[in-house]
């Protein structure tokens, strides 16, 4: 993707073993500036180990990591300033306040006291905790801690933000807020490496997704590129009243439609690219005099892709 060397992150042939077990097996991928790249895989697939290799937290047995043009390993010091790391755990001090936590972690990134003060205020504002700045973290809800956990990685304006399953164990509302925050950061031009085992998060958030299983990156690409690997068709479920059989017949004849069936007041249309075909399907239904009551486009999801590529379900 970024073979011109402009990648915010470039990983090549990363290898890490724990004894006999190969946790990361020749993994390579790039993340461009402004791109959100998802590493999707079940628990134990090697996502967190890959993240730790990227951040120089683990020694590796092979491969290279380059962040913003600078190589990274476990002995690196200065180049780590380009990375903002959000661990899977809530890595905060519960007996310190939100502001004290941010000031401490920000100061480790060599921010001057004036700049640090401003950044702490900005980040607290960004994550919606400005009014709780002086409260101890152990008085926060799980969602607030998660947001602060992300905030602590943003103080030094990193070129690459690395998030290791940042929504594990949070309520839907907090998850939504976190995903909104991450999306905004990606839109602002920051490169984001995001690991998750939630397929919906990867689909919603990531420009590209790498599917990882048993330490190996088995596929990567955009959502569309990945689902095309499955050779599975999209489906349009058209709820309608009237003569459903003649409607099915009309829709079957449309260019791009590979088949249609009826069941329970619904015509199911199979197509290669359902979203592009949808306007023509609705026009044909209207022309056929059908009264359309509902429309649903069902595309093959990453769950299907994962099943197709690995032979096992994502949540196993």
């Amino acid at each position, binding site marked *: 993707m970024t073979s011109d060397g402009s990648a915010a992150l470039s990983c090549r042939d990363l290898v890490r073993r724990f004894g006999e077990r190969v946790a990361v097996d020749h993994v390579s991928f790039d993340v461009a500036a402004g791109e959100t790249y998802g590493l999707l895989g079940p628990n134990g697939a090697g996502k967190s180990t890959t993240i730790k290799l990227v951040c120089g937290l683990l*020694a590796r047995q092979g491969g290279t990591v380059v962040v913003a043009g600078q190589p990274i390993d476990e002995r690196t010091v200065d180049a*780590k*300033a380009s990375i903002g790391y959000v661990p899977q*755990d809530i*890595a*905060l001090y519960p007996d310190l306040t939100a502001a004290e936590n941010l000031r*401490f972690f920000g*100061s*480790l990134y060599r921010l001057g006291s004036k700049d640090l003060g401003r950044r702490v205020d900005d980040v607290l504002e960004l994550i919606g905790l400005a009014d709780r700045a002086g409260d101890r973290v152990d008085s926060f809800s799980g969602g607030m801690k998660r947001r602060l956990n992300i905030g602590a990685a943003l103080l030094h304006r990193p070129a690459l933000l690395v998030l290791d399953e940042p929504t594990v164990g949070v309520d839907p509302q907090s998850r939504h807020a976190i995903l909104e925050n991450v999306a905004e950061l990606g839109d602002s031009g920051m490169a984001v490496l995001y690991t998750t085992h939630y397929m919906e998060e990867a689909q919603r958030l990531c420009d590209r997704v790498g599917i990882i299983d048993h330490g190996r990156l088995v596929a990567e690409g955009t959502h569309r590129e990945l689902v095309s690997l499955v050779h599975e068709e999209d489906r349009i479920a058209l709820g309608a009243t009237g003569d459903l059989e003649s409607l099915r017949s009309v829709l079957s004849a449309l260019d791009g439609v590979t088949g249609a069936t009826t069941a329970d007041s619904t015509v199911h249309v199979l197509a290669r690219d359902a979203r592009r075909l949808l306007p023509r399907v609705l026009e044909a239904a209207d022309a056929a005099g059908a009264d359309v009551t509902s429309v649903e486009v069902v595309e093959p999801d990453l769950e299907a892709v994962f099943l197709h590529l690995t032979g096992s379900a994502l949540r196993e």
Partner: protein
Amino acid sequence: MRAVLLIAAKDLRQRFRDRSAIIVGFAAPLLISFLMSAAFGGAEDLHATIAFVDEDGGELGSALEEVLSIPELEEVLTVETRDRADAAARVDDGDLDAALVVPAGFTTAVIAGEGAELEVLAGVDAPLSAAITRAVAEGFLTQVRANRVAVATAIDAGAPVTDIAALAERAAATAPATALEDQPLGGRELDLISYYAPGMAIFFLLYAIGFTAKSYFTEQREGTLDRMAAAPLRPSAILAGKALSVLVYGTTSLTTVAVVTSLAFGAEWGPAGAVAAIVLAMVLAVVALTALVIAVSRTERQADGLASIVTFTLALLGGNFVFVATAPEAMRRAALLTPNGWALRGFTDLATGSAASSAVVPVLSILVFAAITAAAAAVTGRGLVTR
């Protein structure tokens, strides 16, 4: 260096917000050293009131009565002369601590060379007073036997038998040829608060090993250690920051205990410079021990258990609970294998008036211990932060 200071400052902020750390580092050593001094210090004020019963009526009975009234015993004994029945009843009632009885025929039996014993009537409520009374009786009997031997030797050597009375009188008046007297090297008596104040301060300082090791593994478990390691700083800076926080905490704790016990309880610590050198060396040894506990442990629970074992083993061997100078030889030798044993030896010497230079050997010994321990930690714990 900035990162080291930042991490140390953060650790200290957390430490001083934790009430238990304040109690262990400051309140507990002050309180326990005061209580132990008060508890054991009671022995110094021991005084017994006893009855003297003379059923013998002979010369030796009178001699013993004279012995009991010498000025040296006035601080320890108050003696009342009574008959046996009255004395026994009063001892039984607890009005008197003990009674020393010279049985009838005692003098005659001694002169005849027959077995002669004094009797001590002891009350169950005052075992220490009874022990003092027995000690006085034993001392008197020893002197009497020595006099008999002296007179007999003189007669065997050809002294005129007509001079026996004069010889006996001279022998009785002669002080023993040798006498033992406790005399501290520095020339000053060691009071208990001056021993237990540093003893307890060091004991509670050893708790910092557990605190810090536990905090390290908590940081590892909760991910804050990884978060620090992901920042642009050397992994060694994280360990150095934690070591610095122990150094500051330990030095503050020991210094506070020294100042407060000096001012409030009158504890003797000795010259400030020498005390500071021992304090610093001891805190460095604690830092090294902490590093070793972290290096050889794999979990928080392991570290906690190991730190407890180290703390109590060192405290027991080093003499933090008992005055090691009066302990058996093996225990005194074992104390010198521990940094706290050396520290207490140094503090004791200084407290009894020894020169500041007397702290040199203890300080060097502690530093050698610290260096060996730190080296072991460095070898065992290589790659501690980024494994």
